[in-house]
């Protein structure tokens, strides 16, 4: 490590030599940052619930109308039952899977698209860049939620694949813009110059020199996309545009709302799925914010000791 300890100018990314230490450094960074820890723990909890829901509840099929209607919380049903006789806790647990899967899939796909478009726009330049940027900006500005609503209405019965599809199509543009900006600023950095001078092909440069330096931004994009997916998918399902027969938190909220749960004293039916959405979203948001702090030294929390006056 060189002796350059002056805090790097914000926005300046690390030099490539560091990427090898990333794996270790990442884990240590998470442990050192409280926000990241909370976010990571939440995420782990939800992942476990999604993977093996049957360990956490005796109910086999959470959607079946198996129990008494609108029962209050009890030992058998810790959160009570819905107006259809479903165990609320079981629904929450089984519903984790869909929400988590949607978040990860949409986050991943949207990130891939934004990487492709953002970096190509930065590298191709000229006309291609102009076109790609215009397309990105249009997708960015046009309010996509009403558009999703209209499309979903036309597409007929709600379908999780459709939901994922529209979320990806509407969610990539923010990341593409950011990645393009960063790729542009990296274009002229010295280590890329040296790669060019060595005679490396553009594709090599992009894959092995540029991308590794942008991992923090790409990761941030993934987390942002996942957050967007969780909230928007829940919103879509809430208004009934998802698959109403599927098992997810958003659909629970939909049925709760259509049965006027708030007004009929079934608050738990409303509060708990929304709380889960909030917690899953918060975990992505916390991790995202923490990584921002980790990668940008200017943002890190500081302590302020006073300078001591000494006489020599």
């Amino acid at each position, binding site marked *: 490590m060189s002796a350059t300890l002056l805090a790097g100018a914000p926005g300046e990314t690390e030099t490539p030599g560091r990427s090898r230490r990333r794996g270790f450094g990442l884990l240590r960074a998470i442990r050192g940052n409280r926000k990241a820890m909370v976010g990571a723990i939440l995420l782990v909890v939800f992942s476990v619930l999604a993977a093996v829901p049957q360990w956490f509840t005796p109910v086999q099929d959470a959607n079946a109308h198996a129990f008494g209607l609108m029962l209050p919380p009890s030992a058998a049903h810790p959160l009570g039952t819905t107006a259809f006789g479903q165990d609320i806790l079981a629904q929450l647990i089984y519903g984790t899977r869909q929400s988590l899967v949607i978040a990860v899939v949409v986050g991943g796909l949207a990130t891939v698209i934004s990487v492709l478009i953002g970096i190509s726009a930065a590298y191709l330049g000229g006309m291609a860049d102009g076109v790609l940027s215009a397309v990105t900006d249009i997708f960015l500005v046009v309010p996509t*939620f*009403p558009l999703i609503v209209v*499309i979903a209405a036309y597409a007929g019965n709600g379908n999780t694949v459709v939901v994922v599809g529209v979320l990806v199509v509407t969610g990539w543009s*923010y990341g593409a813009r950011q990645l393009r900006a960063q790729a542009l600023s990296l274009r002229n950095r010295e280590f890329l110059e040296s790669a060019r001078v060595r005679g490396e092909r553009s594709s090599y440069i992009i894959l092995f020199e540029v991308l590794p330096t942008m991992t923090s931004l790409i990761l941030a994009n993934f987390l942002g996309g996942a957050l967007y997916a969780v*909230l928007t998918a829940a919103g879509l399902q809430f208004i009934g545009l998802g698959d109403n027969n599927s098992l997810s938190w958003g659909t629970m909220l939909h049925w709760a709302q259509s049965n006027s749960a708030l007004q009929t004293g079934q*608050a738990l039916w409303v509060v708990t799925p929304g709380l889960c959405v909030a917690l899953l*979203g918060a975990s992505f948001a916390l991790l995202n914010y923490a990584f921002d702090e980790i990668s940008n030294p200017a943002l890190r929390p500081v302590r302020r000791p006073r300078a001591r006056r000494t006489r020599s």
Partner: protein
Amino acid sequence: MRYLTHRMGFFVLTLWAAVTVNFFIPRLMPGDPASAMMARFHGRVNPAAIHALEVAFGVNSNQSLWSQYISYLHNCLTGNFGISLTYFPLPVSTEIAQALPWTLGLIGVATVLAFVAGTVIGTIAGWRRGSMVDSIVPPVFVVTSALPYFWVGMILILFFSVMTNGALPNDGAYDVTSTPGLTLAFGVDVVRHAVLPAATILITSVGGWILTMRNNMLTVLAEDYVRMARAKGLSNQRIMYQYAARNALLPNLAGFAMSLGFVVAGAILVEYVFNYPGLGYMLLNAVNNLDYPLMQALFLMITVAVLVAVLICDFLTFWLDPRARSRS
């Protein structure tokens, strides 16, 4: 000046894209809206209703696709969106005109308030880095910014409406029993009905602004010109406002413009939860009623509103950033 013309050009381009998308959606979707209509009204379809659909989609089997497109564009420009199927026989434009003020009033005001409040709090948090305020602010608001809009609305309803037995109303923009008019009583009623929805928007969106403004402040505070300002012996207040905040605000404005899409999504859901008669509520009702002309017109209207807001942000940036004025 080139900056402004460039932004206006973008405005027109995006609007054209939205209109074109609107034109093609019914043509690309499976199924035929006309038969859906027929099914819905059990075969008894009014010829005027069919005509409404035709106008809305620009469907006219006698014309080529291109001339259909042109007449559709013409219709859009003149505000002729056809007849609403839900509010038959009122034209779509009339319906929209009724809902627009409620949305602008509630959502518009609440969003701007949230942005302003968020910017101010973010400025202070960024400035007082390392203090108590700053260690609480980020985690709290990171969490609030991840809360789903509609759920927050429902929680507020639970605690302030249901549990308080209707102290703050949760339904509509004003009481069905009161008479609309420019009276104080009506005004108070409107405000009462707006409290919870506005609070929902404020709570969920302010966090995002606080955090971005704070981060921008921190970035700006590490810049050389802030150090220069300290070297000159300028007062903290002057540095905070004229050197740091003025510069940190600029990317925040850009961020505001970019996040409007998300704001709209939240706004629609809030209107739905509170039955607030704005554009969003109308849109969701239109979806449930398969009122295609109204749906598409609303989409266009919302797009226009967002684009206008973006344009306003562009003008503000032009005014605040001398570099934008000389951008080539």
